[in-house]
């Protein structure tokens, strides 16, 4: 009996505050914009009983979804988001893997310190760290100042408010998420496997490619998911660093909701984003499950 | 083996008036389709030091966990002092367990670990303190009372686990491979300590082990198990000298097994085991039928080894010739692996009464092996 209570409490909480909201979003995405509070109709009025429910259901339609397909903005934004998220994930991997590898190869006394150094930015406010780049990337910012001073360029580069800034921002903020899973796997790697590979004829590089990388596969996959999935729906980074030129779906959703006050369309945008993400999310969960089973 | 002190023979299992403390009555335990315990019945008496012996997976740990209350039988009853303990949860049983990993609470001192169970009982403060001090004295841990588990050695942790499990003076103490983590010397010393404590406190001990030497040393009775069943339940000497099956004979100690056919000759049984070789002469209280397939089992130390053919006598009723293929030198004894003409290997063990250089036998020597008619026993085929 007590066991059931233990299960029930977090379960019900999550059902109520995680699952049910999604159903509501789905419902709203099938509704219409209305000049009312709340700004959508039909509004489910339970007091009207069964008849009310039937009336309510009959008024739902897929108008918003059709709207999404007709207006160029939306599918362009989805594509742009996919492109940015994918590319950022790859760049983060290219930056993060050597870092994780270096940490794993460092002397044992150094590792806790290095780990702490990677985690510290993670504990610092994400907003502040993105903000820091605003200063660096602007026309009068330090990066431009440095490049001008070095003589590499003649006129300040436009970095801020371009997709480039968004890439930098995503890689920067999500780097710890890529480094940590890879590091934790590399750290457990048995040194003697590499020695065995070399003993059997591999060069250092080949041993790395044929032994280290495949064994780190799980960490790499986890890291990629931890970057890709949230990056797809990112709002803050494109908003502060991307400017109006950068199309990302998270920003579109926000603007639909707050600026246009069009909740039904915003909901439809969210549902489509969710549908795009379902497969990566399920794969991520399966990867986590396999990881946990492998560890026990 | 737990030899009883001079004069009194401890064997409650032979007394028909003695009521057992623990009774397994047709107990079966399955995990899904895997049957861990198969219709097992067993009586264990008070003050016994009882050993459950067998290889991994034989079900001995499952039996112990059922006694402790962490598993429930799929069918059958387990009784403690006559009462069915099936519905009683582990925290309410008069049974305590000493875990294989010791399971000492790392955040509590040695003193607090021992006091833990007493506190749960709500024992009065001065009784509690006295009892804990008594346990510390019993296990010689007085100096380490304030330390935490990670601040003491492995052997000391084992004693804390023992003290903690005895603190509540349970009717039954379960020991799950208690000496496995100790090195050999420590293990031997601790075995005798355990027997001492068991006798002093008068608690019934049930020990689970895969180490047959351990079981033989400490136990008053040993239950040899295999695949969820009891194969033989007996005192250590009878298990060793009179195993009831090839499995038991082979599991405990070293043994030679020769297969053959029985030829009844009065009160002796002749075993025809090889063409052109005289039959092995043995005795058996078991009734074998003529020409029945039998296994003759004899311990290596019961076989004498000679460089020349010995005279036939009672002691040398059986004589065979062979060649030394291998010698295992163990310091105090040597085991000679001798090959007989038909290919059968026999192991003969003798004490090294002479130093190696003066030893009589060496590899490839032709030797004679002999044993008496009562040196081995016959087992079913």
């Amino acid at each position, binding site marked *: 009996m007590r066991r059931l209570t233990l299960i029930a409490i977090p379960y019900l909480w999550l059902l109520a505050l995680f699952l049910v909201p999604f159903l509501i979003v789905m419902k709203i995405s099938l509704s219409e914009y209305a000049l009312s509070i709340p700004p959508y109709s039909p509004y489910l009025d339970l007091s009207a009983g069964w008849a009310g429910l039937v009336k309510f259901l009959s008024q739902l339609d897929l108008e918003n979804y059709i709207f999404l397909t007709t207006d160029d903005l939306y599918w362009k934004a989805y594509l742009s988001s996919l492109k940015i998220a994918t590319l950022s994930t790859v760049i983060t991997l290219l930056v993060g893997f050597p870092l994780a590898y270096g940490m794993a190869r460092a002397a044992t006394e150094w590792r806790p310190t290095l780990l702490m150094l990677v985690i510290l930015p993670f504990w610092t*406010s994400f907003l502040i760290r993105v*903000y820091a780049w605003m*200063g660096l990337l602007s026309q009068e910012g330090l990066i431009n100042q440095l490049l001008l001073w070095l003589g590499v360029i003649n006129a300040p580069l436009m970095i801020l408010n371009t997709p480039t800034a968004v890439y930098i921002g995503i890689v920067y903020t999500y*780097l710890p998420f890529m480094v940590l899973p890879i590091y934790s796997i590399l750290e457990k790697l048995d040194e003697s496997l590499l020695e065995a590979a070399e003993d059997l004829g591999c060069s250092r590089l080949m041993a790395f490619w044929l032994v280290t990388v495949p064994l780190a596969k799980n960490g790499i996959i986890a890291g990629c998911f931890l970057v890709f999935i949230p990056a797809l729906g990112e709002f803050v980074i494109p908003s502060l660093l991307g400017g109006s030129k950068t199309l990302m779906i998270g920003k579109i959703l926000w603007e639909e909701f707050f600026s246009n006050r069009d909740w039904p369309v915003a909901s439809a945008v969210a549902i489509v984003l969710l549908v795009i993400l379902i497969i990566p999310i399920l794969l991520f969960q399966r990867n986590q499950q396999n990881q946990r089973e492998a560890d026990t | 083996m737990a030899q009883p002190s001079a004069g009194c023979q401890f064997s409650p299992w032979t007394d028909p008036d003695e009521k057992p403390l623990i009774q397994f009555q047709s107990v079966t335990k399955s995990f899904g389709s895997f049957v861990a315990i198969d219709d097992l019945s067993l009586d264990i008496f008070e003050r016994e030091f009882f050993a459950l012996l067998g290889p991994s997976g034989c079900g001995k740990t499952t039996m112990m966990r059922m006694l402790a209350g962490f598993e429930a039988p799929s069918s059958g009853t387990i009784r403690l002092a006559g009462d069915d303990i099936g519905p009683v949860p582990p925290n309410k049983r008069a049974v305590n367990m000493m875990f294989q990993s010791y399971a000492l609470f790392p955040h509590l001192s040695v003193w607090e670990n021992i006091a833990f169970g007493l506190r749960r009982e709500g024992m009065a403060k001065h009784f509690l303190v006295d009892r804990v001090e008594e346990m510390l004295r019993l296990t010689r841990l007085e100096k380490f009372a304030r330390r935490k588990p990670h601040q003491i050695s492995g052997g000391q942790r084992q004693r804390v686990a023992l003290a903690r499990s005895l603190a509540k003076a349970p009717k039954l103490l379960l020991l799950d491979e208690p000496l496995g983590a100790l090195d050999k010397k420590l293990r031997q010393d601790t075995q005798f300590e355990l027997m001492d404590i068991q006798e002093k406190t008068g608690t019934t001990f049930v020990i689970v082990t895969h180490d047959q030497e351990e079981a033989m040393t400490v136990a008053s009775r040993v239950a040899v198990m295999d695949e969820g069943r009891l194969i033989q339940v007996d005192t250590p000497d009878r298990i060793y000298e009179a195993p009831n099956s090839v499995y038991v004979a082979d599991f405990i100690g070293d043994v030679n097994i020769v297969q053959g056919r029985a030829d009844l000759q009065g009160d002796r049984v002749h075993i025809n085991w090889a063409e052109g070789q005289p039959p092995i002469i043995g005795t058996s209280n078991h009734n074998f039928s003529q020409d029945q397939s039998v296994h003759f089992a004899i311990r290596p130390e019961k076989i004498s080894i000679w460089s020349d053919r010995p005279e036939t006598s009672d002691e040398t009723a059986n004589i065979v010739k062979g060649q030394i293929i291998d010698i295992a030198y163990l310091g105090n004894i040597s085991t000679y692996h001798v090959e007989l003409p038909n290919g059968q290997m026999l192991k003969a063990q003798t004490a090294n009464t002479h130093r190696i250089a003066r030893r009589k036998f060496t590899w490839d020597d032709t030797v004679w092996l002999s044993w008496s008619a009562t040196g081995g026993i016959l087992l079913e085929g």
Partner: protein
Amino acid sequence: MKRLSWFNVTSLTLGFAFLYLPMVILVIYSFNASKLVTVWAGFSTKWYGRLFQNEAFLDAAWVTIKVGLLSSCLATVLGTMAAYVLVRGGRFRGRVLFSGMIYAPLVMPEVITGLSLLLLFIGIGLDRGVLTIILAHTTFSMCYVSVVVSARLVSFDHSLEEAALDLGCSSLEAFRLVTLPIIAPAVISGWLLAFTLSLDDLVIASFTAGPSATTLPIKIFSAVRLGVSPEINALSTLMIAVVTIGVISASLMSKRASLRRHHEEQAAERGQE
């Protein structure tokens, strides 16, 4: 055999430089007397002074801390329960859904979570305010807590709980007296994680906050949309300083404790017996 090749050393240096440079620059400029990034007008702490006089910021900070403390405590309790269910719960109907609901929020884009929660609150007629932010933060934080605590529970020696039961504890007592004290470090880091996430959250708070409740991230965001602001630099530096001190001291304490423990264990094996 830990040899760092020149490649390793370069990647470590560049990697950490990349991570830390922006923050270091920020800290430096918070002491810049000039508002502009281009000019260094001398060392000054005037922006800190201005910050502490800004009522709006102070109010928002207070709300943020309140929300952070309440949501993190609630999230820790719920998350620990969820972790226990995941690791020790065995099979039960709907376990797959439960496990999915725990891991999904970890990767879910915040705009989706924020939007869905807001629509829920509207749907049930709950007024947006501090309470709704707390509910929202608790929900996604508990998932992080659950991941941290369940990682610890998986390696927790189950026989310790059995020993406690064997010695007379009820299940609840066993948890309280044995399990909890031992997994406490993991629970505390879960709590810290929940607290940090709450303090730092912008998107979800924006959706679920009402007109009456403004959190610090919301305030910061509206300020920086317009561009770089020296007061924000000062605020950022303060936050970075607090986090740095916290992380370094926690790291030092844990290092010292594990070193001491190691020595004690070695001494015990060598010395006695």
